[in-house]
């Protein structure tokens, strides 16, 4: 078995990764100017009259939009300024979203230091932090308003189903590094927490349309404050977009249509109680080009087919947040969602119900406890197709998770030690304990330091435990003079799939420099064990009796956990405002990721999460300039170095947006993505049965109105 073949096998197995999380955009508790409402929520700082380390000069250093967006709940699960978080945090505000002109949610993460956003196929986008760019995003937990849209059965995150209207997002908190201790499993490399706006923050009619060649994205929202205590919003979006190009620029004639409609009610009878209820429906039809095998007089050949796929999603969420005093609050949340999705001739239906209670209690001036308990159940039904099978046809998973955390204020808010752990009981792994310790020290107004050690876990997905898949491809027999035979890889999930483990050491510093500049540095060392591998268990060549040539090569594999590795690196962000009308951000991120398979099995085993595609260096330079009150120009230059395996060339992207506001309620803009090249390759697809794709330059116009 050559190494090439092994690589191909492993990559084929990755194919299983596809498919997704259903829930389209869930929007729950949003927030308001200056005060955040976290997901399963703590009270906002506005209710918190206890002293905090936020100095007036620190507040003054924030712009108004930053005041509205800088409260980060994801690190500590309670509102705090990003500058006071003991973790690597980047906040994308509504202003950032609006000025990016982004057409899809996943593109917003291209501005975040240390994140890899790559288009793998027309329907698969991978968003990862600190390495592991691959066909799926399993190591990044994604939540919308506290509801996990990460799918634990098939893919991790399927970004094409994240249809939340971009104009309704308040902010997105991106945490690099393990979020396990507070956010549960599957946040081994990071957490993305999308927080949508409360209905009272989006009053009136708002519409946004982006139109270009093969591009249409329209968003519509109507919000109203019905009384002093009740607000509502109706919202929706629709998207049509031509798919990605082939490497040589030819089109696969693929496209995607997707739409979402939702309604949300916010009820706040008094300052101590708030409630949110929302319901959403989404649907998409899309063409997913795939490689298949055909047979002709010259033997087997591969060709591209363009089957039409679809998904349908339903999501409903309710939450009650009760904060009787500044020192205590409690949230109760329940959500249900269901999606149905076609994939390679199979059909999967998944439903998930989740009920949680979370709270925060400031027991003394020194100790503040966060705690929570969640019960969750999912059910998957899979109608088998030619390539994908769920062993029993259907499967139910159950979880009971809890966490407790003590934040110890050793010197007020200036020196805080946070100790905590999450516990998880489920029906497919032993008890999971994910502890962490973090310290934040505000050494001076000009310097804050933080550090943390955490242990986090990615639990095996249902596809790794209970699914089988067959992937056909063509295989050139080594030493045969180029003889090509069809090859079928038979992949079996099973008990060999264990929880992947990471122990992470992190440290960082933040230093405001003067009133208009700040430096944010994060360093990390991650040690990974029990990474999933694909082990070859058999190989045979069925043939026609009497024929010298085999008809096909059949390889059977079984999942195991024989890889381990480490990563170290850092992200440096310098942001500032050289002029009142000019904001700039420069960042450099570096990672050295090394994954290896247990040498005793190296000949027949391949890691399912290889380090091949990792880009060691990334540079970003983001600028926003207001030429006048009516005209603004934004740009993002993004350099990504060559992939570790050398197969993907380095590339530099330039995105630009020029906006003009002729009237207060109208904004017109021209947007260009990837302006430097006609198209570029972001991910090398060697074995998945999808054609390789290139991300083309896109130019479009945008109109935004508000009444």
């Amino acid at each position, binding site marked *: 078995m050559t190494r090439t073949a092994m690589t191909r096998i492993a990559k084929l197995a990755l194919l299983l990764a596809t498919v997704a999380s259903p829930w389209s955009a869930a929007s729950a508790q949003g927030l*308001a*100017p*200056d*005060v955040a*409402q976290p997901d399963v929520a703590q*009270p*906002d*700082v*506005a*209710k*918190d*009259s206890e*002293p*905090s*380390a*936020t*100095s*007036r000069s620190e*507040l*003054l250093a924030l712009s*108004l*939009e930053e*005041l*509205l967006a800088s409260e980060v709940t994801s690190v500590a699960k309670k509102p705090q300024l990003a500058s006071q978080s003991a973790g690597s945090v980047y906040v994308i505000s509504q*202003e950032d979203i609006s000025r990016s002109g982004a057409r899809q949610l996943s593109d917003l993460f291209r501005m975040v230091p240390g994140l890899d956003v790559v288009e793998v196929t027309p329907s698969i986008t991978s968003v990862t932090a600190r390495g592991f760019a691959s066909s799926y995003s399993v190591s990044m937990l994604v939540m919308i308003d506290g509801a996990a849209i990460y799918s634990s059965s098939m893919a991790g995150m399927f970004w094409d189903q994240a249809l939340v209207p971009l104009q309704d997002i308040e902010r997105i908190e991106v945490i690099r590094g393990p979020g396990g201790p507070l956010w549960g499993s599957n946040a081994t490399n990071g957490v993305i927490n999308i927080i949508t706006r*409360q209905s*009272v*923050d*989006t*009053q*009136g009619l708002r519409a946004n349309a982006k139109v270009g060649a093969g591009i249409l994205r329209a968003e519509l929202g109507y919000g109203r*404050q019905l009384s*002093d205590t009740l607000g509502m919003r109706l919202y929706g979006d629709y998207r049509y977009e031509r798919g990605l190009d082939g490497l040589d620029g030819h089109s696969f004639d693929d496209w995607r249509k997707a739409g979402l409609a939702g309604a949300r009610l*916010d009820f*706040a009878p008094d300052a*101590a109680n*708030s409630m949110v209820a929302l319901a959403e429906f989404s649907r998409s039809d899309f063409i997913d080009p795939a490689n298949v095998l055909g047979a002709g007089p010259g033997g087997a050949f591969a060709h591209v087919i363009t089957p039409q796929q679809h998904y349908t999603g339903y999501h409903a969420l309710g939450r009650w947040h009760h*904060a009787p005093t500044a020192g205590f609050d409690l949230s109760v949340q329940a959500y249900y969602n269901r999606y149905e999705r076609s994939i390679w001739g199979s059909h999967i239906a998944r439903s998930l119900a989740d009920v949680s209670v979370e709270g925060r209690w400031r027991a003394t001036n020194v100790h503040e406890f966060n705690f929570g308990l969640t019960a969750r159940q999912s059910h998957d039904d899979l109608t088998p197709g030619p390539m994908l099978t769920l062993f029993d046809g259907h499967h139910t998973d159950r979880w009971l998770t809890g966490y407790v955390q003590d934040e110890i204020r*050793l*010197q007020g*808010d*200036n020196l805080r030690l946070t100790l905590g752990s999450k516990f998880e009981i489920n029906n497919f792994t032993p008890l999971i304990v994910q502890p962490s310790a973090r310290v934040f*020290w*505000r*050494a001076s*107004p000009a310097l804050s*330091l933080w550090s943390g050690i955490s242990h986090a876990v990615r639990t095996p997905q249902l596809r790794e435990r209970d699914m089988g898949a067959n992937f056909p491809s063509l295989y050139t027999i080594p030493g045969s003079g180029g003889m090509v035979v069809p090859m079928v890889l038979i992949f079996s999930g099973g008990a060999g799939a264990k929880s992947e483990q990471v122990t992470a*050491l992190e*440290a960082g510093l933040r230093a405001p420099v003067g009133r208009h500049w700040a430096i944010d540095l994060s*360093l990390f*060392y991650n040690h990974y064990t029990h990474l999933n591998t694909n082990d070859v268990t058999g190989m045979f060549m069925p043939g026609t009796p009497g024929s010298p040539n085999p008809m096909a090569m059949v390889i059977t594999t079984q999942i195991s956990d024989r890889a381990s590795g480490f990563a*170290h690196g850092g992200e440096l962000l310098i942001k500032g405002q050289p002029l009142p009308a000019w904001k700039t951000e420069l960042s450099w991120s570096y990672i*050295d990721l090394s994954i290896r398979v247990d040498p005793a099995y190296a000949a027949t085993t391949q890691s399912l999460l290889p380090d091949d595609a990792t880009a060691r260096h990334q540079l970003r330079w983001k600028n926003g300039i*207001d030429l006048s*009150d009516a005209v603004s120009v934004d740009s993002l230059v993004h350099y990504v170095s060559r992939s570790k395996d050398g197969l993907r060339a380095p590339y530099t992207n330039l995105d630009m947006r020029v906006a003009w*506001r002729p009237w*207060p*309620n109208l904004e017109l803009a021209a947007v260009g993505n990837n302006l430097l090249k006609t198209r570029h390759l972001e991910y090398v697809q060697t074995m998945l049965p999808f054609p390789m794709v290139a991300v083309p330059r896109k130019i479009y116009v945008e109109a935004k109105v*508000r*009444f």
Partner: protein
Amino acid sequence: MRALNFSARRMSVMAAALALSPLTSAPVAASPSGVKAVMIYNIVRFMTLPEAKPKVRLCLRRGEDIAPDLVALSGEPVRAGQLEVVQLGALADMRGCDVLYLGTSAAAAGMPGHGQVTIGEGARFAEEGGTVGLVNFGGQVRFAINARSAARSGVKVSSQLLRLAARIVN
């Protein structure tokens, strides 16, 4: 080896972070009114008065909860000038005030004169003619802007501020 060196460096950073040391300055509380005061200051910064002035005078009634936090912002830069916060015994004499914080006063009091900005509390404040209404909902604060009132009093509201408003009254 490189990894080992790297983690050793990191450990020293962690140790530094863990080390206790005296604070160099006492923090100021980020109380609700502290945050609200900075919000008001920022809102004022995004408005252009018909006449450029070296001092932009913000008046409010003595005894308002927010008074100490607003007074602390006196002297902060606003456009080409500085913010000057003045506490009044009563709101009867509002001449000379560029910005009026009216608290929960009746909206009728909130009609801005020429070159004036009025800021008040409640969803109806902006609806009934005040320039900026601070709206509490579920214990959180956001703001509504009456673009018509601002235009009538000759005050230009920046597009950035309008984008951030929860509501625009036209």
